[in-house]
């Protein structure tokens, strides 16, 4: 585990990100999509918090709200003790260098008409006043750090493979010496053999620069490898948060249990033995979540109370949090 008094770098309390649905000629608001609904957690300095969940559960929205790429509806996001939710304009811009993002699709997040060198230098141009030589040196330094050949600085993104493009995106995120990086599915678009390269690079960089990651992914096995603690999201809420080993060996929430059992095992003998929890049906729409517990429509262990009252977010010891009525009984 972590040191005795781990320092909290990012603290999220009651974060809500609701999107209004407008319909009709007058664009009246007819409802809201509760993409992120009352989420609270802390990220300690130097750790990797894994945020897992299925598509549409709000994990990317949560990541983007924390970086203030959206204006959160409600809640507090503290970066080193400063609440960044009410900050706007030039003052928010001054905070940006400390928090960066690595995007999912390395094809879409790089401007095809800019050379790799100018893509990596763009944050430097925006936030710092560097001389030409300083700028070139910094770009070279960054390209070395992510394992790209310096001579490629004048090439264009399409000349690179997916894994290399992701390295360009990582170099750009590192340009301003950030403390906190949100990695939004950075390896989802890559092949297995390339995924491992990028994950190793992220780990090396974390050690070297003392970075803190929020690692958003749907790949449970990769999160197990990378993360120190893991949060599981379902339909806009975090249902369970625990240190990595505790979450994978003794998941408490029925959704986490089902999610873990659904991961195919690359071992045909184990696959035969494995007893699988198959969830029925689909995730409900976040515009119209069920009453009570969000998971009650698919939960195998559902009780009457689950359909009426929302379960409380509780500490079950050793930093293991979960929200489920079942756990209250024991």
């Amino acid at each position, binding site marked *: 585990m972590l040191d005795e008094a781990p320092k909290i770098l990012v603290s999220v309390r009651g974060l809500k990100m609701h999107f209004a649905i407008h319909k009709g000629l007058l664009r009246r608001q007819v409802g809201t999509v509760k993409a992120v609904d009352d989420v609270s957690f802390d990220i300690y300095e130097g750790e990797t918090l894994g945020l897992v969940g*299925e*598509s549409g559960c709000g994990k990317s929205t949560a990541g983007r709200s924390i970086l203030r790429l959206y204006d959160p509806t409600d809640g507090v996001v503290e970066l080193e003790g400063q609440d960044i939710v009410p900050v706007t304009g030039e003052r928010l811009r001054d905070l940006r260098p400390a928090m960066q993002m690595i995007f999912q699709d390395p094809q879409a997040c790089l401007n095809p008409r800019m050379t790799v060198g100018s893509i990596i230098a763009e944050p430097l141009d925006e936030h710092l006043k560097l001389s030409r030589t300083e700028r070139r040196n910094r770009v070279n330094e960054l390209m070395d750090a992510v394992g790209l050949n310096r001579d490629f600085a004048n090439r264009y993104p399409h000349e690179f*493979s997916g*894994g290399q493009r992701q390295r360009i995106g990582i170099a750009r995120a590192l340009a301003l010496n950030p403390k906190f990086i949100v990695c939004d599915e950075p390896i989802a678009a890559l*092949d*297995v*053999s*390339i*995924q*491992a*390269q990028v*994950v*190793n690079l992220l*780990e090396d960089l974390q050690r070297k620069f003392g970075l803190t990651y929020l690692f958003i992914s*749907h790949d*449970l*096995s*990769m999160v*197990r*490898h990378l993360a120190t603690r893991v949060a599981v999201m379902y339909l806009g809420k975090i249902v369970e948060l625990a240190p990595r080993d505790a979450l*994978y060996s003794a998941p408490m929430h029925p959704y986490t249990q*089902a*999610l*873990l*059992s*659904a*991961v*195919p*095992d*690359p*071992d*045909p*003998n*184990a*696959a035969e033995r494995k007893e*699988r929890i*198959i*969830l029925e049906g*689909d*995730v409900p729409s976040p515009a119209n979540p069920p009453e009570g517990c969000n998971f009650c429509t698919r939960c195998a262990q559902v009780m009457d109370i689950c359909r009426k009252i929302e379960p409380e977010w509780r500490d079950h010891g050793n930093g293991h949090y979960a929200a489920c009525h079942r756990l209250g009984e024991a």
Partner: protein
Amino acid sequence: MPDGAEPILDVSDLKTIFRTRDGEVHAVNNVSFSVAPGELVGVVGESGSGKSVTMMSLMGLLPSPPAEIVGGDIRFDNEDVRKMNPTRLRALRGGDIGFIFQDPMTSLNPVFTVGYQLIEPLRIHLGLSKKQARIRAAELLALVGIPDASKRLSDYPHQFSGGMRQRVMIAIALACDPKVLIADEPTTALDVTIQAQILELIKGLRQKLGMAIIWITHDLGVVAEIADRVLVMYGGQVVEHALVKDLFARPQHPYTRALLETLPRVDGAREERLRSIEGQPPNLSAHPSSCPFAPRCGHVHDRCRSENPARRMVSAGHDVACFWSPPNAG
């Protein structure tokens, strides 16, 4: 092939070339395999390994030009597919051979109802009347586990969720009782819990319908779960072929071994550092004169760079295209 049953689909020395403005791309090089009735063959490989192009070539689904099948023999039920006239080929596609594509959103037509798209192959291939076809269509939707099947026939694809759409695709592929079902990454676009549902469904359908299935995927976990035999592809070639348990217990090819080692797991011991396969997949601009994996291989020697290894038997039903033998071979 040493199997007892007569293969329903037999492919030998298939070669497909794309002729582009920038030169030729040798996407499929001397691929041979066969599938027996009732068997599920998994095809694994990274993007660009030629697994999809192989299957598209089989059914003449590639646009020509630029694609051209330059050699090889494709036999379906002892009939030469490459010599078939367009009418027979049309009857084959969708009739005798069903195809499930990766992305259910782009392969369903958004302006027609699901019922229309299900009824179309039934009327064309089986010559059913509208009424009969509608009854059969409802049966098919029920078979793939869509509740309220007869009502949902008049819904459009966007009214279904991702998992349900993939079920619709499976229903369409199964519509005419195909003898062979080719599934091209059918669960890649889906969440793990939905993927688990689809895998369960396919397992059930196999027992019920007894058709041969070719399952293309990049996920070794999925293969371990459902396949009987596995083909591993790399650089447009089959590099290893074995029964699924054999492959996972005694992988022979350095690529297969590396691939299995790079995979993180949700259970078992957690490695401190992921092993990665350094380097990039080959570009396939010419017919291979050396082993395609040689630049990334840890066991490379001079012969690998001057000669492309042919597939050789290592044990019953297990062959590998590599000169090197692992120490525990047997």
